[in-house]
């Protein structure tokens, strides 16, 4: 009799199941608008030219070995990664109150931050401290915090489905009425899944309430550079909050902007009040890392560190990032234009107003089902599409299919 005979079958993770179904589909015109990875105009994954260059350097460098990294990760990676988010001239960095933990992707960075908060934020047991995530948000946010022991993960108002934009009043209302010391997960840019970001003015309002009510700021930055094509612009919100003096966390992912998805490159940037607090925080972070993965993987961090620390490679990287961002912008413009040309009912401005990899089309579940079953176009049940899945070759088919779905399926 097995000890595990009672283990139930778990439901598959939706976004991966979608890709699996897509892979199994034999339809020649099938399109995958599901998982969030960049694709070229030939629908191929793209290893950034700068990454290829740096990988060659690494593989031929006999002085490099595979020794353990320090628990908190590769120092050159951590410092350059934090600089990317906060800016080279960040006063917080100059004041020695910025630390970093190299983590396994953005997920790993969120996990480390969550584990730390659960243990140390506002007392030593935060299992009942509310954690707010946007409605909607990346589907793994909930699980990361719940799994780290937070029993009260709640939504904050964010997406206004009717007007297809930010529900600022609702968001601010939740900030005003939430329990004291609540933790808020904020998307630094290119909100996943809606692609709708607060404007600078709106961020200022959000920051004011959070400062006044002493709420904890936890940024999730998975698309820096990828959203507008400009690193500084995409980090504006993070830097603004730092300038106001918040103690905060920022989980960074280099999966998308470096195309290093499977090497799991992430960084948890910690902004503390002062160096003494920072020291103690980092010592406790080490303990948490040690029981989760001991020390992080070296390959991806090396690639990023080498790139960010060399002026030429850094420049080349920025160019690669802009290439990706520009292709997405082009697809947005074209999709909107085609839907308007087709006379598809509704307004489609949100397609070009939204930013980053994803677009919340506004398609309802029935229409999504139609897209998948009848047209072999795979997208999330929420109506989220990955703009990178669009190409000049398939955009007509997709536009026509959306048109059909909207006009024929209610």
């Amino acid at each position, binding site marked *: 009799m097995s000890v595990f005979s009672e283990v139930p079958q778990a439901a598959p993770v939706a976004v991966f199941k979608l890709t699996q179904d897509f892979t199994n589909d034999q339809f020649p015109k099938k399109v995958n608008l599901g998982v969030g990875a960049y694709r070229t105009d030939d629908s191929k994954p793209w290893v950034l030219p700068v990454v290829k260059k740096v990988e060659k350097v690494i593989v031929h460098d006999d002085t490099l*070995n595979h020794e353990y990294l320090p628990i908190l990760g590769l120092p050159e990676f951590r410092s350059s990664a934090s600089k990317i988010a906060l800016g080279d001239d960040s006063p917080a960095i100059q004041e020695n109150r910025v630390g970093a933990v190299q983590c396994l992707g953005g997920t790993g960075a969120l996990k480390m931050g969550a584990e730390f908060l659960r243990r140390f934020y506002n007392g030593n047991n935060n299992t009942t401290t509310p954690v707010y995530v946007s409605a909607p948000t990346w589907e793994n946010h909930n699980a990361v915090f719940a799994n780290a022991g937070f029993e009260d993960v709640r939504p904050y108002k964010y997406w206004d489905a009717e007007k297809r934009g930010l529900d600022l009043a609702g968001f601010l209302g939740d900030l005003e009425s939430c329990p004291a010391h609540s933790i808020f997960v904020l998307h630094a840019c290119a909100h996943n899944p809606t692609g709708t970001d607060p404007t600078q003015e709106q961020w200022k309002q959000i920051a004011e309430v959070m400062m006044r009510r002493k709420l904890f700021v936890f940024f999730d930055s998975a698309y820096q550079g990828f959203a507008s094509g400009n690193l500084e612009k995409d980090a504006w919100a993070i830097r603004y909050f730092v300038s106001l003096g918040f103690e905060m966390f920022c989980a960074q992912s280099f999966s998308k902007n470096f195309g290093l998805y499977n090497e799991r490159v992430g960084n948890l940037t910690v902004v503390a*009040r002062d160096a003494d607090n920072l020291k103690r925080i980092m010592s406790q972070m080490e303990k948490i890392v040690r029981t989760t993965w001991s020390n992080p993987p070296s*390959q991806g961090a090396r690639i990023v560190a080498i790139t960010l620390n060399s002026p030429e490679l850094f420049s080349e990287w920025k160019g690669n990032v802009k290439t990706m961002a520009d292709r997405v912008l082009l697809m947005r413009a074209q999709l909107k234009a085609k839907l308007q040309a087709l006379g598809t009912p509704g307004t489609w401005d949100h397609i070009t107003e939204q930013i980053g990899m994803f677009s919340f089309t506004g398609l309802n579940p029935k229409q999504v089902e139609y897209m998948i079953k009848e047209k072999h176009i795979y997208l999330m049940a929420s109506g989220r599409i990955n703009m990178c899945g669009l190409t000049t070759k398939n955009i007509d088919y997709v536009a026509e299919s959306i048109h059909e779905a909207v006009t024929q399926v209610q």
Partner: protein
Amino acid sequence: MALLKSNKVISCLGNISPALGVLSSRNSSWWGGVQMGPPDPILGVSEAFKKDSNPKKMNLGVGAYRDDQGKPFVLSCVRKAEAIISAKQLDKEYLGIGGLAEFTKCCAQLALGNDNEVLKSGRSITVQTISGTGSLRIGGNFLSRFHAGPRDVYLPKPSWGNHTPIFRDAGMQLKAYRYYDPSTCGFDFKGALDDISKIPEQSVIMLHACAHNPTGVDPRPEQWKEISDLVKKRNLLVFFDMAYQGFASGDIDRDAWAVRYFIEQGHNILLSQSFAKNMGLYGERVGGFTVVCGDVDEAKRVESQLKILIRPIYSNPPMNGARIASTILSTPDLRSLWLEEVHGMANRIIKMREQLVAGLQKEGSTHNWQHVIDQIGMFCFTGLKPDQVERLTKEFSVYMTKDGRISMAGVTSGNVGYLAHGIHAVTK
């Protein structure tokens, strides 16, 4: 708690007394109550070693292999595999949550043997993990969520220092069974059997598959057999930690013997594997976690739940190391080369053990140092007491952990004489 309370008192006073300004700025931080975490004992050794300017200093702390020049060793099979992989110009798309399929297949085959009935029947599941630590952690999380038996994981006494906090953070509790006999510097077989016989049914028992860390003391095959029988009688859930397959004796099948024997005997085991040491892939974080189940259906259900556990921690594992490992394991001439190199590493360690004992005898030591040769793997429990260790460090700049453990990998033909001299000096 007391610190937090006193902070609250001080923050009021801070407004009155400027002298308390420093404290009140700490109070205005969320993290004023965060204590400095204790330094990691093993890494602390390395830190102290780095600071020492004695040219004869030796770092016998951390367990990473060094060649006879005291340098990190990148295996040729690894470099060759990297060249092959580089030429393929693969993409960097996310792996599945369970990792690289070619890797998990090779990983399981390496541990269980290609012809193992378990693999043929498909009644086991192997997921790629973040090296051994990640594997143990996922295992702990899985037990915590799904194991219907007691919350206790029984570790050998002593065990790897990180076992305890890993399982604790995963939500399990730790207990111990006797293992190391300090009077013989060997295996306390009677004590182990005695303690195991009292472990409540369905508890989890952790066994080091080979090259026990930190003692280097392994049960002999006939002892393993008795342990297996007893564990079966007690109906315990076996969790093997195999971090040194190939590295212990130099022979991968011999080092996996206990794991395979237990499975043969009907134990549906949990197994953690690490490729940090045997492939020198330390920083690439290559490991596997295996659950041997009752049948294929159960394996599928367990797999689905492992994915649910993994996703909120790191989503999916890193590619690079797993790709290297699977390339080596599945390419015949690379695999042969690897077996040679692993044999080479194990042999160098064995030679150093012999040379250390010879050196001690030459120094005139009258103690029995046979255990240094009998113990196996990277580590040696010398039997040195804390005060002797302290002297060895202070007077000879030999850095090791307080429990008397030395990493044989840090010993070279160039420094083994010096080490023998130092050990003799503090033990005569």
